């Protein structure tokens, strides 16, 4: 089995984060590079929207501008995620890696189980949602955290982590956001639709979403959380991670993607209709 690479935690500007993840994904596709786990943070607040989301319908762009929140589009699917005090991960591997079943949902479950174990090491009891949002039951809310989906992580019935995948040419990438803390007011400010009375909307989100620091003391550091997750992935999959930086090819592709793709947000905006 190929050795895994761990790209250790580091903070980057929002758009660069997405460009880095996609550069790793494309290079694993192109050159069959090692399966990779990357842990990262955000140098400034951001909201990431799913590949298929309609910006104007989902995000209050004025509120983002006023609040200094950068909007980025993820290469993966799913709903909008507000990134400020969260720990974000990306898992990138070949679809034929024996650790992962063939379907999106089954692979999602395998990764979620590692996250459960990682939280368990921190003393937090998380479970996987046994049922969740399906087609026809879709939430009207833009936020990823508004309704749990199947196999997502819940702590005391509230969602603590949101994740989504993309697949192409035999390689998959799963990106996810584990909330260290959660700001429901800010989330309501930047995500649509705005509902009245606002207090009810904030409360509804509070009842559905939780974060690590709702349950753990602040003495638990981000480094502690990273270490727990790394150990959980290694234990669950019986693999060892070797720390590694981006390759020269990944750096070059990241710069290219940043300049040509991630500066552009017009897709599925009011100037460009949404998909069916």
């Amino acid at each position, binding site marked *: 089995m190929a050795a895994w690479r761990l790209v250790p935690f580091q903070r980057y500007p929002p758009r660069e984060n997405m460009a880095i993840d996609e550069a790793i994904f494309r290079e694993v596709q192109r050159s069959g590079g090692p399966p990779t786990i990357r842990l990262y943070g955000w140098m400034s607040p951001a909201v990431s929207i799913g590949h*298929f989301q309609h910006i104007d319908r989902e995000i209050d762009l004025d509120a983002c501008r006023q609040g200094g929140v950068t909007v980025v589009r993820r290469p993966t699917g*799913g709903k909008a995620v507000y990134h400020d005090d969260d720990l974000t991960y990306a898992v990138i591997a070949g679809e034929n*890696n024996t650790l992962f079943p063939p379907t999106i949902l089954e692979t999602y479950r395998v990764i979620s189980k590692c996250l459960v174990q990682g939280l368990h090491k921190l003393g937090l009891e998380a479970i996987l949602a046994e049922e969740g949002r399906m*087609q026809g039951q879709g939430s009207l809310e833009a936020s990823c955290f508004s309704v749990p989906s199947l196999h997502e992580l819940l702590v005391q019935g509230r969602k603590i982590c949101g994740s989504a995948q993309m697949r192409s040419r035999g390689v998959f990438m799963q990106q996810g956001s584990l909330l260290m803390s959660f700001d429901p007011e800010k989330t309501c400010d930047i995500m649509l639709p705005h509902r009245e009375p606002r207090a009810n909307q904030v409360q509804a989100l509070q009842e559905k979403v939780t974060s690590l620091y709702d349950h753990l003391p602040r003495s638990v550091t981000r480094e502690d959380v990273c270490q727990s997750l790394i150990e959980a992935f290694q234990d669950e999959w019986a693999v060892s991670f070797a720390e590694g930086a981006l390759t020269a090819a990944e750096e070059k592709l990241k710069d290219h993607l940043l300049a040509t793709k991630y500066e552009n947000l017009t897709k599925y905006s009011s100037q460009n209709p949404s998909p069916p």
Partner: protein
Amino acid sequence: MKVFPDDLLYSREHVWVRVEGDLAIIGITDLAQEKLGEVHSIELPEIDSEVERDEPFGAVEAAKGTVELISPLTGNVINVNEDLIDDIGIVNSDPHDTGWMIVVEINDLDELDDLLDSRGYHDFILQEVEGD
């Protein structure tokens, strides 16, 4: 084991092609839709746009993930399945027929030589599984 119709050709990216003269009707295979799960949305090229062999021509979104659609051929898109707008579910329920996605005017018929027949695709899937 799934049945892959004999009158279709298949790419290693799990896309099928029905050849009618110099036109190719294109969709995803039953195996591809099964891996995806229930499809929610689809993004397809516009009519009169070009698609390029081995490059993405669109994407589909299912629960918890998106998948890029890789074109098996180079050519001009002359039709897009509008029925998918009303009922995206046919990608899951009838992937090899009414769940077709685009029709392409083929630039180079020699590109068809790189595609697999149903038997070859069946063997390719088995190799993928055994290669795990």
